[in-house]
């Protein structure tokens, strides 16, 4: 009987094993994770959980639900190596043989070398449930917070913190991007933060630590903070694969279906998938979910038949930011609608030959849906101006 091993039990790995069963796969399935506890998803960690919500709300399912569908779940079991030709995953105590292997080990907080000593001194990162509980406990109205990194993660942390009354400084870049959004698409970001009381600094910063506090020199500004969070990016959790597979800084290289080698597949943040770099969902939960369904379909012999439009979302200060489709580097950005202050907040992304390939909106569900229906069509300038 066929044995599928899935390494990594977050949203990619869990969606994959559930989809395998729903598609009728009846072989053995083993699901491993390095962490302990029930599988969980990450989006609530920087939203509801930081706002004081229950960390258990991030759980994807409990262990009995995996048992009920005949999945052997082994938490606290890191994979440490892989023998592709011999079809074996190496564990701390012995090997695990597989017929099909799905790599879903995702990513970890990236901390560039000059900053690693900050982490050693108690600076926070936010990737795991444990990280979120620790950060939520450290936030309070009497302790100032500094967030290094103004991207999606740093922005969501700053947003949650100010809404809890925490004095918050965001150390961002002058032309800060938000996930796939850059240029005109990201322009609403820093004004939004400032309008909600976040102190945004975009000058080069120097951070030092002493007497339990962080000192931050940002251009002419001299600041102190009690809590520092480093949110400067993610690196693929692929080190354990480096001797066996083609691994780059963005993960394991695979084809457009997620295939890495015969019998080996990759999904989610660890997958450096051909052709997906400009999808708005690149390295998001939305992509992990779709890729997991696609790979499960390939293994179970039941490929996905519906079209899936890449999707991105973030929640900042009660404003939902959404994007769909692709944003190629040389695309043109057309504003479709403006907010009350006259600033553009709904956009179409148009490629060389005038086709709408992407859509984005800040705080406008209606505008977003309208922009999304334009995907794949030629931009109608008159309709766009309306």
């Amino acid at each position: 009987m066929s044995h599928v091993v899935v390494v990594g039990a977050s949203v990619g790995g869990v969606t994959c094993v559930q989809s395998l069963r729903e598609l009728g796969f009846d072989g053995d399935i083993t699901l491993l994770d390095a962490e302990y506890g029930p599988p969980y998803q990450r989006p609530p960690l920087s939203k509801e959980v930081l706002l004081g919500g229950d960390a258990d709300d991030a759980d994807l399912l409990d262990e009995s639900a995996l048992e009920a569908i005949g999945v052997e779940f082994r938490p606290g079991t890191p994979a440490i190596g892989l023998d592709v030709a011999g079809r074996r995953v190496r564990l701390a105590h012995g090997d695990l043989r597989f017929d099909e292997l799905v790599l879903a080990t995702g990513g970890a907080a990236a901390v560039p070398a000059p900053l690693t000593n900050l982490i050693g001194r108690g600076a926070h990162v936010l990737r795991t449930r444990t990280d979120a509980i620790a950060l939520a406990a450290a936030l309070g109205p009497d302790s100032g917070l500094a967030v290094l990194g103004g991207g999606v993660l740093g922005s969501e942390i700053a947003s949650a913190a100010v809404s809890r009354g925490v004095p918050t400084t965001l150390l961002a870049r002058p032309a800060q991007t938000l996930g796939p959004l850059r240029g005109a698409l990201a322009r609403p970001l820093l004004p939004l933060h400032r309008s909600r009381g976040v102190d945004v600094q975009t000058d080069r910063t120097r951070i030092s630590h002493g007497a339990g506090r962080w000192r931050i020199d940002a251009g002419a500004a001299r600041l102190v903070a009690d809590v520092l969070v480093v949110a400067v990016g993610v690196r693929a959790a692929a080190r354990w694969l480096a001797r066996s597979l083609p691994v780059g800084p963005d993960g394991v290289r695979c084809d457009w279906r997620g295939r890495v080698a015969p019998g080996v597949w990759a999904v989610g943040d660890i997958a450096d998938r051909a052709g997906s770099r400009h999808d708005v969902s690149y390295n998001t939960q939305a992509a992990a979910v779709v890729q997991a369904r696609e790979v499960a379909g390939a293994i179970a012999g039941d490929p996905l038949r519906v079209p899936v439009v890449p999707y991105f979302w973030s929640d900042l200060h009660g404003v939902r930011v959404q994007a769909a489709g692709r944003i190629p580097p040389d695309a043109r950005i057309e504003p479709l609608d403006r907010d009350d202050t006259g600033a553009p907040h709904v956009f179409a992304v148009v490629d060389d030959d005038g086709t709408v390939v992407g859509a984005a909106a800040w705080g406008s569900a209606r505008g977003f849906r309208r922009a999304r229906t334009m995907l794949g069509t030629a931009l109608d300038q008159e309709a766009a101006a309306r």
Partner: protein
Amino acid sequence: MVEVVVDSAACVGAGQCALTAPQVFDQDDDGIVVLLAGVVTDVSAVRQAAQLCPARAITVIG
């Protein structure tokens, strides 16, 4: 026949469900999922919609 439950608080308005199973899911003005039929017979489209929801807001029971 299966039962479908949506968690509208978790829904992020991606609209993938309405694209995958338009007989069962629609979106309101805010983009939040609206269930058109709680008990459904076209099980495969609904299961696929549940699998593809990026917020994992859809549960299929049975």
